[in-house]
């Protein structure tokens, strides 16, 4: 089996991640921050240590500004719904996943003005187009770091400069890039960063987070969920302390332990090395697919401007048939359709049919890619 659906979720997970998850449930299974006994403290320590590792990983100095959520979608909802108020203006790109588009459409109904900056058909965004849409009431710009459909990287640092000049905030969805591109929020000018654990951070599903830059005043962010935090229990009001203000309810301890192990595993493996490996695989995929005249590849076709996510269609054939036969006849696992990103498919011109998406990961070998391309050739020629 050749798993080329890493952009949906990474698989397999490193054994160290699975071990950390079983270890924590066996040996540190108390409720963190609720009781004062050793199991509760052991659990709280694992969560705090992971918070520290995440803050270092993304380049913020205060670990308490790492807010754990269920996934990137949850983190994006927290940021958007916590900050935007009726009358505010928000800008996004036309390459967004529904994790961004749907909360924005929902907020639009509550009196928030939404502008969508059109991207080019290869998924690229001209930062100046954001500048042209900025107005005096622009509160926030939200954008994906790299498209989950075609892998195109968006110019985050350039957009950040424009956004900050206008006195607005920048929220970036790094679901696809965290773990494969070295990232420093401060250097990139990101005010709020939404990540998920289960993709290239190698963690299990069900854990993600919102990282709030050191200079952001948290008073301007309302919690998405209120409830028990184990702190200030005498009060029926939600506390203002970080991270408790945004983290009500018992945490996903096993997920957080897995996330910590995933980060340590990535550090050992080296993100620069992973990045270089994926560029090689991406080049192979683009070159291999380009040899078939009936195949149309979307995106920049340039591994220097994209992550290793390659989308294609075959003239006269449905993507569902290609995906099914790749799985059934050759054990090549892809994802076909709209990838929860109708706006992105409209931008690249593949709506409503969608594309076949191939996304290799850190465990994918060059031999896997060679075999996958041979399989694709056989499927499209028969």
């Amino acid at each position, binding site marked *: 089996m050749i798993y080329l659906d890493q952009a949906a979720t990474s698989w397999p997970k490193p054994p160290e991640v699975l071990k950390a998850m079983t270890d924590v449930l066996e040996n540190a299974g108390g409720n963190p921050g*609720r009781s004062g006994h050793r199991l509760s403290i052991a659990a709280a320590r694992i969560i705090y240590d992971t918070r520290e590792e995440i803050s270092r990983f993304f380049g913020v100095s205060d670990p308490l500004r790492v807010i754990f959520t269920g996934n990137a979608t949850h983190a994006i909802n927290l940021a958007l719904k916590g900050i935007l108020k009726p009358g505010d203006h928000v800008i996004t790109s036309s390459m967004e996943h529904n994790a961004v588009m749907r909360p924005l459409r929902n907020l639009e109904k509550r009196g928030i003005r939404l502008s969508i900056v059109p991207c080019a058909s290869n998924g690229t965004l001209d930062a100046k187009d954001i500048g042209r849409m900025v107005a005096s009431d622009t509160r926030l710009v939200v954008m994906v770091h790299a498209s989950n459909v075609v892998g195109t990287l968006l110019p985050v640092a350039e957009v950040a400069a424009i956004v900050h000049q206008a006195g607005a905030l920048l929220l970036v969805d790094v679901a696809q890039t965290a773990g494969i591109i070295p990232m420093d929020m401060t250097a990139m000018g990101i005010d709020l960063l939404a990540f998920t654990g289960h993709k290239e951070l190698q963690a299990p599903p069900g854990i993600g987070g919102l990282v709030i830059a050191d200079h952001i005043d948290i008073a301007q962010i309302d919690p998405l969920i209120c409830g028990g935090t184990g702190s200030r229990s005498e009060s029926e009001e939600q506390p203002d302390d970080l991270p408790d203000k945004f983290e009500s309810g018992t945490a996903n301890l096993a997920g957080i332990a897995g996330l910590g192990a995933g980060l340590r595993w990535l550090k050992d493996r080296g993100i620069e090395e992973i990045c270089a490996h994926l560029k090689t695989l991406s080049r192979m995929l683009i070159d291999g697919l380009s040899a078939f005249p009936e195949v149309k590849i979307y995106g920049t076709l340039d591994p220097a401007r994209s992550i290793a996510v390659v989308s294609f269609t075959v003239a006269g054939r449905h993507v569902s048939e290609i995906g099914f036969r790749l799985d059934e006849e050759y054990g090549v696992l892809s994802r076909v359709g709209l990838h929860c990103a109708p706006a992105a498919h409209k931008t690249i011109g593949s709506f409503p049919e969608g594309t076949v998406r191939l996304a290799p990961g850190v465990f994918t070998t060059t031999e896997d890619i060679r075999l996958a391309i041979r399989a694709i050739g056989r499927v499209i020629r028969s």
Partner: protein
Amino acid sequence: MTLYGVILFHTTSSVLRVEKRLIKEGFAIRLVPTPRQFSSDCGIALRFDWNDHERITSMLGEEKVEFAAIHFLDANPV
């Protein structure tokens, strides 16, 4: 006989952050359940040797560490 003091915090994350810092400085400290006589919070607190009281409080002040309160525990373990 050791006399103890206890530092109360608003969040578990803050306790753990300060615990790490104090261990690094070589203080003999221990996490204990928050003594009920001082707070209704359900979490943990940081117990220290009362002899270190001044050094610890000045360090917390210098580093602008947020905490809820510091109490003298006497010789009670918690």
